[in-house]
């Protein structure tokens, strides 16, 4: 059966490889190339794949070549024709990979477009962002067309779930998480998202809501469960810093929102202290040094992961500091040395 996405057209600005593949948008794009330009271009598609040609056609093709290969230079003519044929075969490659690459690219663009929409200045160019419905539809169509590709399908389901979260379609997000099979998920990021999916969906629903205290206290058990589950995953994903940092940040926001669910000022202080101390655990000495002297770029030798970790920390520690300062002195919690250094660092205390 011919695949309906076999001939997707690329967007005008897509950079295609000489074999017609969509440019990969791999993680390495966020690595330093120069100190002033840390975001390098991603590598191009390096793999070609053949299309589904049948053997009978091949045989006819070969027979044709054989019948024409007569006289002087016949063998050279055959070799040339054969090579042309192989090149043609390889040229139509990348079909499936290209479809997946497009899904990856489009979904990321759509999610970011939704997220950045709050900042008018950076509203995405409608011409470059894929229609949001298309992303989910393409994922569904791809999985339907490749039911045997379980690892691919489950990874795409996780992506679809995140896409739905960005669209505030929480039920659809949970459904997408549910159909992604844990045994078919292999990356730390996807496995963590799957395992935390009920808590993540809950947090996406809860985070933007203005909760009066009775409601906040009603949600407290869910928050406590989420805090425990996130902490487990943070420890499990220590070898995948991007994932760990993301989970630690989300956990910190949950903790900050629910810190004031404590009965007394003392309890509120303790909850805030726990949030700050736990979150500070992901920062290394280089991070702390940069927090103390945050001039210029976030460290010339820093990796993209470190840059993100440092810059994203600001909102959390500022909010924590704001809440801690509202507590009376006797209610303030014990803050670990590492968290204290961050809270008192120039990066947090000074406005840029």
């Amino acid at each position, binding site marked *: 059966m011919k695949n309906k996405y076999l001939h997707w057209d690329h967007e005008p600005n897509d950079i295609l490889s000489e074999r017609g593949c969509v440019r990969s948008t791999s993680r390495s794009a966020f690595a330093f190339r120069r100190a002033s330009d840390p975001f390098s271009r991603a590598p191009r598609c390096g793999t070609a794949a053949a299309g589904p040609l049948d053997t009978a056609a091949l045989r006819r093709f070969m027979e044709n070549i054989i019948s024409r290969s007569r006289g002087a230079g016949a063998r050279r003519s055959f070799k040339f024709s054969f090579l042309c044929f192989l090149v043609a075969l390889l040229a139509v490659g990348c079909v499936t990979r290209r479809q997946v690459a497009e899904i990856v690219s489009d979904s990321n663009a759509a999610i970011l477009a939704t997220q950045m929409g709050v900042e008018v200045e950076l509203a995405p160019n409608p011409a470059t962002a894929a229609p949001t419905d298309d992303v989910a539809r393409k994922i569904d169509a791809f999985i339907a067309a490749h039911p045997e590709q379980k690892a691919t399908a489950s990874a795409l389901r996780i992506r679809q779930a995140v896409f739905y979260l*960005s669209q505030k379609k929480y039920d659809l997000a949970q459904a997408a998480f549910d159909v992604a099979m844990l045994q078919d998920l292999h990356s730390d990021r996807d496995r963590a998202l799957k395992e935390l999916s009920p808590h993540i969906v809950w947090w996406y629903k809860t985070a933007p809501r203005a909760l*009066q205290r*009775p409601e906040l206290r009603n949600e407290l058990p869910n928050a406590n469960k989420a805090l425990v589950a996130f902490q487990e995953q943070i420890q499990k994903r220590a070898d995948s810093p991007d994932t760990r940092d993301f989970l630690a940040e989300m956990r910190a926001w949950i903790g900050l929102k629910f810190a004031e669910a404590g009965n007394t000022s003392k309890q509120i202080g303790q909850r805030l202290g726990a949030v700050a101390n736990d979150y500070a655990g992901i920062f290394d000495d280089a991070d702390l040094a940069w927090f103390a002297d945050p001039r210029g770029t976030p460290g010339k030798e820093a990796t993209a992961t470190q840059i993100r970790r440092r810059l*994203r920390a600001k909102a959390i520690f500022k909010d924590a500091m704001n809440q801690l300062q509202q507590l009376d002195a006797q209610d303030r919690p014990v803050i670990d040395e590492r968290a204290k250094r961050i809270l008192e660092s120039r990066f947090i205390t000074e406005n840029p």
Partner: protein
Amino acid sequence: MLSAEAAGLAISITKGLIKLGGRLDLLMAERTAVGGPLVIPMPPVNKPALIWPKRVEKLKTHLAETKGLSPDPLGEDRKELANLLAQDPVPDEADRFFFRLFPELAEPPLIDPDAEYFKALKTHLPTVDWSDKDTRLAAFYIASGRDDRQLGYAARTALLVADVIAEFGAENTALFVRDNRVRGVVQSILERFAKPDLEGFDTWSPLLRHALGATLNGLVDAQKALAQENPWLDAVLSALALARENAADADNYLIGLVHGEGYPLLVSQGLLVAGERLGDDGADTFQKLVADILIHAAPLVEEDTKGFSDFFKNHWGDLLRAGLTSLEKHGSTLLEGQSPLLRETLLAMIGELAKTPDSAFLSSELVFKLAESAIGAVANKPELLKGNLKKEWFRDLVVSLAKTLSAQGIRETFTREGLESVVKVALNVLADHPELLGDEPGVHLELVNAVLKAVSAVDSLEAKTIATAAVSSALGTLANHPELVDSPFGELIAGFTEQVAKLVAAKSLTGLQAADLISAAAEAVLGNPALFAQVKENLAGAVVEAVLKGVKASQTNLLAGDGLVETVREILDVLALRGRDLIENNALKDVIARLAGAVSAGLGRAEKELGRRLDLPRLPEVLAGIVAALARGDLTELDPEHPKFKELFARLAEAAIARAQLEGAVS
């Protein structure tokens, strides 16, 4: 002109490349999906600007500051709010008033972590072009992180290439392997190796298992090529192939062997193959016989879950039957040149053994002894081989013995060795006296059966001792006194055996004493078989019972062990000689009571006479004399202090001394 061979090769290469491209495409698609970056937004957070204690404080301040204002900004809510704020702790419901009175503090602008991050990016990386979509995307990518699989995409790509090359190699083995035999092997291995999509493996263990399995299975598949010059290598490979074919998980069967599993099946199939190879048309008769046994053993090995250590012990009978069946089939050839009588006898017995399921319980030695007995019997009476008699005689012989050996009760009493030992004693007697087998060989084997059942009360060691004595005495006596063959002699011995076995079980006798008693009883019965036969109950047993009762009643310790056995022997002899009136005129229980009274009184007297005119070795003789006096009717008073009894006792004791002195002088 391009040859057809070259064109075929070109097509094959092209097909391989197409496959490679298609599968590589899927693999790379998976890598893109699994390892592709993902933008995961952080949801905006809604938080009041003030924490709860500060909100309470603010409400209290507001309540105080607005007190007395007119119009009252709180209106009718004032009272309720005042009530709430007066409580400690302040109820959560008060937050409703804060949200209403200070909406800008209760719901300040959302904190958007991503927007804050983006602001920080612009501040700290001002030279980056943030209007570029790809740059913005890259700033938000979350990498996929560690992959939990042992084999990464590079390794899986290599496996994919290896797979395609293996497929190509399997299709075109002739191109690079010239030796026909090796080519077959290589082709088989490559076909197996390339069967699943190798790039689907994501851990080493199953991949290595597959590689090993492919190699082993490929070798077995290529058995014809490998074993052209070595029929036994062919046999081994055939056995492996058969075992694999019959295994539940055929593909992993050979791998299982590497892990030490599935050997019964392999050995079973090995036996089958060996049996077939041995038993082909060119094989000699003995080889055919062995082949039959091996083929019969094959399913037994497969079913045996206990391992091989006890296999032959557990399945001896099955193998014996297989051997016997085969022997019956091939026996005429094997026994060619032997005397017709011997051949006929052996074949008849083997045929019967093969038909009898319980013959499984016969050991080789027992079969040998049985054959010896049968040959002796036939030599003694050749007409046993004629007509129906032949059939019935051999059946009776084999079935009786097999039944005895297989009887559940008997097998529970004896150990395997113990049972064989007793039966061997019986067969020895029958082999020495084949005439005992007569026309109904089962009769005497039934006697063995009865004796073996009679000792069921005692443990296996004592049972063996008693049963051996009983069988030996009974059959030995019958052999030496053929006139007793049709008498109830056997039953008497079996009954007596049962009684003494009970005494042994009750610790009243030892096994050896019981064995002596049985011999004594057999001799006594021989002395007067008619007398012993006419008592419906067992007279010999009654004597033992009476003596034991007498010993107990006397409250002495004078009679035990050998003295007791000797006393019983003497009394049995006395009764054989003089007991007719006593036994015929009294009920057995009265006889027992009187005998017990005599023994008791004798022992009472003996206690006082010991060292005066009596010693212990002569006590049984004196007691037998008292019983003889009783049997004759000369003794009516069974009181040890009665003058007549005293006198009788003194006379008997003096006579015993005199006899001893006389024996001493003679010797």
